[in-house]
């Protein structure tokens, strides 16, 4: 399957799951599980940062249009798309791993721990920015912090479950012929 088709399918599936399953769940009226942004985290390494941000913006905007207030998810998605290349540079194990592999995964990030840290940081940024924009103020800092941290834990758990259920085969590609 070509990379383009694969990613379009992923985007559609993640959106459907987010809008019609996860958004209906409210744990203690506080935590909504967010998983849809995993699509952005799984985009190929070689994609340019500007394209990454534009795709993230459109993707977030589509999700926003389901809930009739555009902007919130789009802003959060653009933020993580902007931060992703920095974190990839920090966590990628050896020189050139991002050219040998197609997209971020446990294998290409060199183990489960760096991968989970990578995912946790981006989930944290996504959720924090999203909740901050929704509340518009640091009205109740503890409420905001607890909500963000709990939501991030749930997001990371969902990401791990997704990784376990849908195993992505990562071919090792090398430049040397």
């Amino acid at each position, binding site marked *: 399957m070509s990379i383009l088709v694969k990613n379009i399918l992923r985007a559609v599936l993640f959106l459907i799951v987010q809008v019609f399953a996860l958004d209906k769940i409210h744990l203690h009226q506080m935590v909504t599980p967010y998983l849809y942004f995993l699509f952005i985290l799984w985009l190929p390494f070689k994609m340019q940062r500007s394209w990454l941000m534009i795709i993230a913006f459109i993707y977030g905007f589509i999700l926003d249009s389901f809930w009739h207030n555009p*902007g919130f998810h789009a802003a959060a998605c*653009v933020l993580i798309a902007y931060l992703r290349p920095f974190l990839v540079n920090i966590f990628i194990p050896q020189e050139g791993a991002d050219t040998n592999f197609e997209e971020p995964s446990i294998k290409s990030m060199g183990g489960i721990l760096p991968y989970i840290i990578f995912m946790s940081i981006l989930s944290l940024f996504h959720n924090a920015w999203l909740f901050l924009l929704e509340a518009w103020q640091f009205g109740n800092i503890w409420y905001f912090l607890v909500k963000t941290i709990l939501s991030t834990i749930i997001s990371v758990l969902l990401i791990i479950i997704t990784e376990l259920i849908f195993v992505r085969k990562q071919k090792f590609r090398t430049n040397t012929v």
Partner: protein
Amino acid sequence: MGNIFLFIRRFSNLLLFLFLQVLSIYFIVSYSKFHEAAFGNTANKFTGRINKQFNKVEYYFQLKRTNDSLVKANERLYNKLRYNFNIADSSDKVFLDTIKVDSVSRFRKFNFLNAKVVANSIAAQSNFIVITGDNVHNFKKGMGIVGINNDVVGVITEVDGNYATVMSLLHKDSKLSGKLLKGGETGTLSWDGKKPNILSLNNIPKSAKISLGDTIITSGFSAIFPKGILIGRVTDIQPETTNNNYRIALKTTANFYNIEYVYAIESADAEPVKNILEKAKASAN
């Protein structure tokens, strides 16, 4: 000049990032303006259709609960029928009615139109409900929405095609007035964005006699809702330290978790009241 291009090239990603963030925040801030202009028609129709298809499935699982609440609503209506009451003899006297029977519709102030909910959110800070049905073409912006048990749900903010968007009480910009049934003091309802079902009522002076469990009803001032529709019951009373008001928390009677049907209220008085208020405001300025 060359330096500017160099700068733009060097920081193109950062600039694009900032641009997209500002664009998103602009959408958030001015969503209503923008919504009506460009976004509303196409996107709303598209997502509305998807939501409707999905709701067909979800609706099926809620049939039992919907049925129960309809039976209860019917029960209450039957209890209101006239033959349930002993009417005093004096009212049985035959006398000439000054209101013509034929023209009764002229004297009707409110008319209830049913609608079906296709999408509902409660987790965000600004929650909307999307409704559809045979009556949608009669809906107008600003009409009040009540739930199946005649309790306040929200106000229509937008109508296009076969769908109408309702700003529910659980929206940080939702500002309706509520009134204490017992004392008659009127305040403004708002939602702090934390618990769905818990609203706060502001501007109630400390002179008001109020206790836990008191009923809050619609004031009927804006003529969107008839006077006396249930909003909720008081669950917490806190005196404000900075002014002479109470901060009152109330639990809504409407259950926002599982709304399946709602009624939109067509009000004969809404338009004249709004016009006269605007005139008063204009002359005050």
